[in-house]
């Protein structure tokens, strides 16, 4: 399996580094002394890449993405976007949260408009309204844009959340297990929509997932995290499938299963959780 040195998407590596995670550690002080969540994490992401992060629960994936988003600061090391260190959250690194995080007292349109209004301060009201409506149209929610989140299904809510994130054209799109709470059909539908939007917008995406098939379908590279405490990036796997990707074609590709087995082996043999190993 060490021969999986696939270099189909080499062209990305010719670009300048876009997002650089350099020697990042995160230590939380606890009652029983300091607890190291992440230790010496290094990763370079290039513009327009789609990165998926996989690891067991508690391996610090969310901590890592929260630091990219700016909600947390690293204890050591630094994270830079276009050579500028990330110090606080901002709309250039928009997050799609697992639980959608829509404001329940606003309609789908108003949720998106809130983001648009914050970012495009110099645009007219008509322009901002158009941007919000176009973003909702992109995820197929024109009909439902005046509904409140509680009137929408889980999949539709996550679509609103994606529309909100994309409406402001972030440089990095951070997705924290965005489809974890959805059923398989909706999840696959949304994966395909996300992929086509990602291609059209040329946005750099960083996504946490538990689903290996999802990661194989979406990612250019899959980041495998070791178990916590003091988790780090154990390995980065290049995903060679040509784009635009077709789910059927990928699953027919012989490399699909070797990659899938490789990651499974990583998660359940090399880095199996203690209680699962019994």
């Amino acid at each position, binding site marked *: 399996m060490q021969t999986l040195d696939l270099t189909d998407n080499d062209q990305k590596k010719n670009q300048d580094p876009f997002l650089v995670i350099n020697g990042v550690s995160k230590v939380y002080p606890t009652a029983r002394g300091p607890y190291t969540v992440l230790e010496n994490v290094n990763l370079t992401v290039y513009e327009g890449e789609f990165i998926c992060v996989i690891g067991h629960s508690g391996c610090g994936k969310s901590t890592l993405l929260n630091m990219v988003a700016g909600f947390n600061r690293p204890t050591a090391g630094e994270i830079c976007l276009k050579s500028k260190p990330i110090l606080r959250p901002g*709309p250039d690194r928009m997050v799609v949260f697992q639980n959608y995080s829509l404001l329940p007292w606003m309609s789908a349109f108003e949720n998106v408009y809130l983001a648009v209004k*914050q970012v495009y301060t110099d645009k007219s009201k008509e322009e901002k309204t158009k941007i919000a409506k176009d973003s909702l149209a992109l995820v197929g929610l024109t009909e439902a844009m005046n509904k409140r989140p509680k009137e929408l299904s889980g999949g539709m809510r996550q679509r609103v959340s994606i529309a909100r994130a994309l409406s402001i054209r972030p440089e990095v799109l951070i997705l924290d297990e965005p489809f974890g709470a959805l059923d398989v059909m909706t999840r696959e539908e949304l994966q395909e929509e996300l992929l086509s939007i990602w291609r059209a917008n040329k946005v750099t995406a960083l996504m946490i997932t538990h689903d290996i098939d999802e990661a194989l379908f979406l990612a250019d590279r899959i980041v495998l995290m070791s178990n916590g405490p003091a988790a780090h990036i154990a390995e980065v796997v290049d995903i060679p499938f040509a784009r635009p990707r077709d789910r059927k074609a990928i699953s027919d590709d012989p490399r699909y299963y070797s990659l899938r087995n490789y990651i499974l082996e990583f998660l359940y043999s090399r880095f199996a959780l203690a209680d699962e190993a019994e």
Partner: protein
Amino acid sequence: MAAGSITSKFTLNNIGEWVQQQAKSFIPPLLALILLLGAWQVICSGKKPPLPPPTKVWEETQPYIWYPFFDRDYFDVDAKEKIDSPARKELKEKVTIEQGLGVKTIISVRRVAIGYTAAAIVGISLGIAIGTNAFLYRAFDPIFQVLRTIPPLAWLPIALAAFSGMNESLQTIGLNVNEAAGLFVIFVTSIWPILMNTAVGVQQVPQDYRNVARVLRLGKLDYFITILMPSAAPYIFTGLRIAVGLSWLAIVAAEMLTAGGGIGFFIWDSYNSGKQSELILALLYIGLVGLLLDKLVYYISKFAVQSDS
């Protein structure tokens, strides 16, 4: 034609169903009411009953029942040169009471409205202040915890004492000492649930919403209007609803002690003059108005609050 008859049959069935469903919701309370009134009638129909039975209450309170908004002192708007119109003159001769219970209730409701509105404004403002500032919260929370356990009427003597020193300045805003003390009791009774619930609501803004605000870099004012207030609204309305019930409890008690009119004073007055039937009717008024106030705040909150679920 066949289709038409089917439709009309269908509609008839629907009406029958509707009546049956409505019956389910109003027949049980009706039965309970008849049972209670019957029991009351039986218990209080001896030779020297402790209280008048329902039939006697009905007989003795006829003018109060039929003329809730009659007021002998009320100036007739249609009259010229302060002489009552013939119709009103006739009414004055016919009706033996001074003032209907509706008028008295309005006096009390007005007091509640003033004290409660003041409590809502101050309570929500202070609640937001101590809810958003950890230092203020730590400083004031213990004090508020003590103050809020003081029973409403315990505030009355101190309010009377304090306001009697300010008699003149109170008169400039059209209040006497008793009136001001009554309003203060309403205020101080209803402020604590509003204040405490607002503070908790403000503190409980979910992390998700805060994260959205942080990522979008919402300004302080924007955060306040678009996230903090809507998110805290359910808590604030819970406080407002508890408070309206408490203030209605307090006004009746305060009026009994301060003798300034209103439904509470009427109860005390009826008791002192041995008019038990009037007292019982007044209790019914108090109960119904309390229920109405509660429902009013409930429907306002339903209209104003958009919850997650």
